[in-house]
């Protein structure tokens, strides 16, 4: 599982966000560090929805939090419209922040329980004042209406709403500052099945209505497929595979991606169910495995995987990149010749 290499970066004028060699370490005491994110590289073009998928501990949420500087960046760049967010400080950072907004997994705990929801939504506008568009009752009502919460409930507090309603309010709060980028960290994982579809459709509608670029983080492969144009698969702090959604689901090349697709209760038709048998011991992120980080669980691992970290390389001519010494799709293609 590399992360080394930048083959997946696109040379286009409309790249809005470029994350290059991002490293995030957390101190774990006794001089140990958690290698949460290790040299992660990807880009997002304007208007795109990029999905980041992986299991717990893969670093997907840390990547999101690092982009908006909720955690400190150890090394690497986060270029937003050409400016490095990782190096911005003080007033410069403050000025960029409204443009990149985030919604969180737990809709209820991410809203201040003591404030009226109208004030929760308005807080960013109140802070920014006339810089963005002044705080007006009409503006808040319009936002509440857009996300499907009746404006007449604006004086209520978060506990008076259901989880789905709270997530709508969280979305309204994020949209209040007229952001260009919306980062969604597991936005439907805490919601009931019958409510998830409502929120996913709402996000699609808001994306279209406000011209958003979306970074969508989830562990759920079906949800990510539904919303994303392009997908990054992460494992233990590294990028394994990245590509257009169609490519990635129709010909998954990385053994880990295939294991994920084979493990879901109704497995994807492109993989064999036995490919999901990868053991359930996730190695420690304080002492990640040498070479390819997936080699300890990978059915295809050989000596080279233990020693050399694979670089991301293109698969065929498609928008599809994989960091693996023994990718699956290539062999299948060779075998077909």
């Amino acid at each position, binding site marked *: 599982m590399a992360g080394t290499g930048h083959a997946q970066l696109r040379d286009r004028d409309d790249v809005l966000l470029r994350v290059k060699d991002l490293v995030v370490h957390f101190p774990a005491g006794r001089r140990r560090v958690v290698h949460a994110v290790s040299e992660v590289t990807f880009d997002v073009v304007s208007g795109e929805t990029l999905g980041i998928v992986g299991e*717990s501990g893969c670093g997907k949420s840390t990547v999101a939090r690092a982009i908006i500087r909720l955690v400190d960046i150890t090394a690497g760049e986060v270029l937003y419209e050409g400016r490095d967010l990782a190096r911005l400080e003080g007033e410069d950072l403050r000025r960029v922040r409204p443009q990149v907004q985030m919604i969180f997994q737990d809709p209820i705990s991410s809203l201040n329980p003591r404030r009226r929801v109208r004030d929760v939504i308005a807080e960013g506008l109140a802070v920014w004042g006339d810089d963005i568009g002044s705080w007006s009752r009409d503006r808040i009502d319009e936002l509440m209406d857009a996300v499907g919460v009746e404006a007449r409930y604006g004086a209520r507090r978060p506990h008076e709403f259901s989880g789905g309603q709270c997530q709508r309010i969280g979305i309204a709060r994020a949209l209040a500052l007229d952001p260009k980028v919306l980062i969604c960290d597991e936005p439907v994982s805490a919601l009931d099945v019958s409510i998830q*579809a409502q929120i996913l459709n709402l996000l699609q509608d808001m994306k279209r209505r406000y011209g958003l670029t979306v970074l969508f983080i989830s562990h759920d492969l079906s949800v990510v497929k*539904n*919303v994303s144009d392009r997908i990054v698969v992460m494992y233990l702090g590294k990028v394994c595979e990245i590509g257009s959604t169609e490519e990635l689901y129709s010909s998954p090349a990385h053994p880990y991606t295939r294991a994920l697709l084979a493990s879901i209760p109704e497995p994807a038709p492109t993989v064999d169910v036995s490919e999901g048998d990868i053991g*359930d011991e996730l190695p420690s992120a304080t002492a990640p495995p040498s070479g390819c980080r997936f080699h300890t669980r990978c059915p295809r691992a050989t000596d080279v995987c233990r020693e050399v970290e694979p670089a991301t390389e293109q698969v065929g001519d498609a928008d599809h990149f994989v960091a693996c010494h023994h990718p699956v799709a290539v062999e299948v293609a060779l075998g077909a010749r």
Partner: protein
Amino acid sequence: MAPDQTTAAPVPLLSVRDLHVRFPTERGTVNAVNGVSFDLYEGKTLAIVGESGSGKSVTAKTLMNLLPRTARVSGEVTYDGRDVRALAAEKVKHFFGVQMTMVFQDPMTSLNPVKKVGEQIAETLRYHLGRSRSEALEEAVELLDVVGMPEPARRVSQYPHELSGGLRQRVVIAMALACQPRLLIADEPTTAVDVTVQKHLLDLLDELRRNRGMSMILITHDLGVAHGRADDVAVMYAGRVVETADARTLFFDMRHPYTEALLRSIPRIDDPVHHRLDPIPGRPPELIDPPDECAFAPRCIYAQSDCLGGVPELSGLVGLHRFACLHPTGTERGMAAMSSNRAAGATAAGLPVTGSGGGSG
């Protein structure tokens, strides 16, 4: 379920009849379970599927005698011919946890954080089966081996925090198996773990059930999990079973509009990218003072005026395909209801219906 009704029908291992559970609260009485009935046969898996508030977990806790004292319970629970709710206190002690055991969602909260996992398993064996300390610890190692724990001899002396979520859940399963139960109730056993781990745990439960001839009740909100792992499925909504059938019938020839709507609303791995989802409008009802109507009617695109006139009964006999709906999907009545709602532009409950909005018509 689905026993042969004509020949001498086998006796179910567990039989639940007209179970009601109510909780008095400051805001009023919560009607958590409203007349649930089902049978579970030896060696079978029944999945109980529902969203939060549907009553699935309360049903499980009622079976395991784990409800708070304030709960008001009525109905019959018969296990192997015995009335479980009438068991004497002395018998109860070695019934729950021995004959019938339970695995919970979050392994971290069902394990004692300051006790080695081996001792926790051994405790069960010593209490229920009177094993000595050393015998029990030896058996704990064997049990960990059975549940697929790598290096079981070393793991017995570890604490829960030293194990991953998947391994912790294996410890909980080992504890549940310690006394060779005939019925295992698994309440969202894989909701707190990753997909690759989920697969291993579900495979393990399947294998244990088959090898030991155990019966299982699998409580889940995940229709995919229920589909792959259960013989029979009961769908719960607002404290009632609204549809129950063998898994195949339920997923491919369902009759209740809620079952249909739920299956339509979830994104599937083989759907095309950016496929527009068909959400269920509105949200689940309040369980305090529910109106005397079909609980799903306000969200149902088939709803007619008779749906608002009383709670529909579950059709047919226990063990067959049963559903509680007056205008079932996939039937003529359902199709007629759908086309009249489309023509009117709304259901009898006032839900707008557009020409393209879901339904099988």
